[in-house]
């Protein structure tokens, strides 16, 4: 039986972040239900607005993690080509050119990157949000253009 290839291991790590998000999302929804029905209380030193912020920021938090997994994988591959550390924008462009990624997909990945940047550097620019499932689809489709294996 063939062993799992490096590219597929990275793809799986990206996907795993989305699965963790789905569990966390359900946990937060259940927490709200329990809170509203008086079954549970807010943790000490927290207020309702903190719980609301947890809900509001959950998907964005996981999008940052999703992109971090994608970036780590991309840099792991790029390190086998060159001994430099380009900015993420340049890295996406360089690998897209090398691996024949369509312009459309490359641009969609940049939209995810820009949204991720807007989350990290809160409110700098108004960026169209990208849902986590859409981001995962774009990042995995792009990542699947990499070769099967490399020395990580």
């Amino acid at each position: 039986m063939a062993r799992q290839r490096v590219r597929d291991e990275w793809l799986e790590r990206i996907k795993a972040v989305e699965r963790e998000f789905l569990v966390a999302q359900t946990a937060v929804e259940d927490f709200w239900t329990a809170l509203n029905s008086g079954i549970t209380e807010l943790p000490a030193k927290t207020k309702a607005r903190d719980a609301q912020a947890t809900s509001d920021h959950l998907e964005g938090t996981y999008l940052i993690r999703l992109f971090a997994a994608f970036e780590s994988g991309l840099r792991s591959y790029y390190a086998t080509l060159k001994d430099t550390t380009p900015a993420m924008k340049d890295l996406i462009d360089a690998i897209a050119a090398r691996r024949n990624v369509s312009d459309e997909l490359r641009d969609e990945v940049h939209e995810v990157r820009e949204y991720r940047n807007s989350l990290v550097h809160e409110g700098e620019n108004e960026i169209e949000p990208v849902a986590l499932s859409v981001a995962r689809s774009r990042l995995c489709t792009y990542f699947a253009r990499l070769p099967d294996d490399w020395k990580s």
Partner: protein
Amino acid sequence: MSQLKLPKKPVPDWEKVRDEWVRAVEQLVADVEAWCKANDWPTRRIEKRLEDSRIGEYYAPALVIQVDLVKLMLEPVARYTPGSDGVVDLYLMPAYADAASIFRRGSRWEFFAVITADKLPEDERPFQPDSDVVGMPGVFDKASFTDLVQLLK
């Protein structure tokens, strides 16, 4: 193969539990391989490494399936899941989009897929004005797998 990591929070008889789970996944993969062969869909097995705090590190097979221009992957996810004795997911590749989750319940496998309603024949579409997707549960066998693949294509 290097030394497998031991479980951090082992369940009683964890080696037996792990081996029994791996055997169940191997049997499922073998069944799906046979169903694919009957439909002339090429497959390729991959050895996947998994880590679980209760049964340690282990290897189990995953299966890549090529159906015309569509690629699917059957991938073991976890032995311990709420309400079942393990789950294997079916993904549409390369986007890694969820196609179905396949749960082991007792000696059989059951699936739950979310299908966009427009993929279903018109007379089978439920009246759900608030949703364009339909949940499809059922026993996972040759007929349901073949039907599911046709809906995913």
